[in-house]
């Protein structure tokens, strides 16, 4: 028990140092623009279908589930606003981040882990190329930028899903649906929700890279790196979300 606790703290310590190095190296040339764009493509574009499907289902299901309660109180007209609000504030960021933890964090963990195990990272190191700069900085940066974009995309698709959900029981004009949403939405709802997605993105990338980069030797450690990247990233997302909600609560 004490041993695992000690391990956890050691790990948090080295992860912090690992993250610190990111801020040190992100501003120093050489900038790996090409690798960065490639990672944006891999991380962002390739996750679109998955995020679209989950986003749509979230909107649809949320609408169908909330409807009976609101109908009971005769407040059916609140439905679009309520669904949009919970989507944008909470559900889309968290679910999308969790999906990214599963897809991106584990992907990075496995990729860098296998590079580590097959000595590719060492090969970069001995040819005087900074593997941290080339592999880690690009990936963390790409995640930090792409995850918020994916969340906004999920918001939009979720709202469309909500529209479909509403139309199962009634016939609402899309323009009217959007007006109802915009009426209940305030600009301040968007800001904290968007800010926290940058943190989600950063940690998804950072944890995947950290686990992969520190994979021990042997092929089985690649699987371990991928697996523990998902677990750690998911847990981190929940903790961050809790902190974010508390902070938002204080200020707004």
């Amino acid at each position, binding site marked *: 028990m004490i041993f695992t606790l000690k391990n956890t703290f050691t790990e948090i310590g080295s992860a912090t140092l690992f993250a610190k190095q990111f801020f040190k190296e992100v501003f120093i040339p050489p900038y790996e623009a090409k690798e960065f764009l490639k990672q944006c493509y891999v991380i962002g574009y390739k996750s679109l279908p998955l995020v679209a499907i989950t986003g749509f289902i979230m909107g649809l299901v949320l609408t169908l589930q909330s409807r009976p309660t609101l109908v009971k109180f005769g407040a059916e007209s609140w439905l679009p606003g309520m669904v949009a609000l919970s989507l944008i504030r909470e559900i889309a960021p968290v679910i999308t981040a969790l999906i990214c933890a599963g897809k991106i964090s584990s992907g990075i963990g496995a990729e860098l882990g296998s590079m580590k195990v097959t000595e590719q990272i060492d090969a970069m190191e001995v040819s*005087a190329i900074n593997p941290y700069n080339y592999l880690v900085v690009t990936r963390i940066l790409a995640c930090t930028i792409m995850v918020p974009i994916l969340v906004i995309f999920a918001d939009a698709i979720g709202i469309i899903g909500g529209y479909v959900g509403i139309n199962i029981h009634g016939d609402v004009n899309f323009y009217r649906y959007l007006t109802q949403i915009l009426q209940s939405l305030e600009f301040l709802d968007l800001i904290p929700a968007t800010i926290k997605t940058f943190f989600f993105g950063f940690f998804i990338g950072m944890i995947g890279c950290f686990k992969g980069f520190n994979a021990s030797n042997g092929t089985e450690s690649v699987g371990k790196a991928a697996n523990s990247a998902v677990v750690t990233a998911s847990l981190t997302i929940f903790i961050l979300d809790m902190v974010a909600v508390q902070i938002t609560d204080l200020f707004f």
Partner: protein
Amino acid sequence: MIKEKENTEPKKTKEKSKTPIIQIKDLHKTFGVDNEVLKGVNLTVNQGEDLVILGRSGSGKSVTIKCIVGLIVPDKGEIKVFDEDVLNLTKPELNEIRVRIGFLFQSGALYDSMSVRENLAFTLKKHKRELTAEEVENEVIEALDNVGLSDAIDKMPSELSGGMQKRIGLARTLILKPEIILYDEPTTGLDTITSREISELILDIKHKRKTTSIIITHDMACAKLTADRIMVLKDGVIHAEGTYEELEKDEDEWVRSFFE
């Protein structure tokens, strides 16, 4: 000049007149709690010399050469490369030395997300930014020609056999024209004919580019062809040292067993 002397002097005294390029003194390394791999390795490689290191699997040969390039930090000891103290250099200083050293990994260590062309061009582009795309391409083709694999240029590493990966790894190591080359088992896993070609390539590079090398191998044919001097690693120290002919007739049966 030293060079003129070389030719006139007999082989035995030749080594003495040469400048040491790699010097290792009293190198110790322990992994984990009790896996003491190196227990005081001493070795010197002179300018233009090919040193072959022999030893049982797991005796710490790879660890030794990884210490030279700073991939593994030893617990104790001194390593000098080009008269620089490798263990006390800053990162940029170390990188300056690393560019002058080629390292062939035992596993090949090709970047598996890149094609063969990109694998070779990657390091070249990073270090010689002044080269045009065409020049890079020419260098890549030439390097692949050297190892006899020019038609693999558009393949991905996963499409290559183990031996081909090894040769591409060698081409990648040689493309920067390093002054020191550390070969970790360059011929393991290759058929006898290819092994011989690789050994001859190593010899050829040494003569053409005047490189200094350390070659780790289990392949005695390769050792015989390339070695100016052989060292045998046992129990974490250099157990025997000499030319191929000397060690072949060594009184220690264990040393002789390598040559059977």
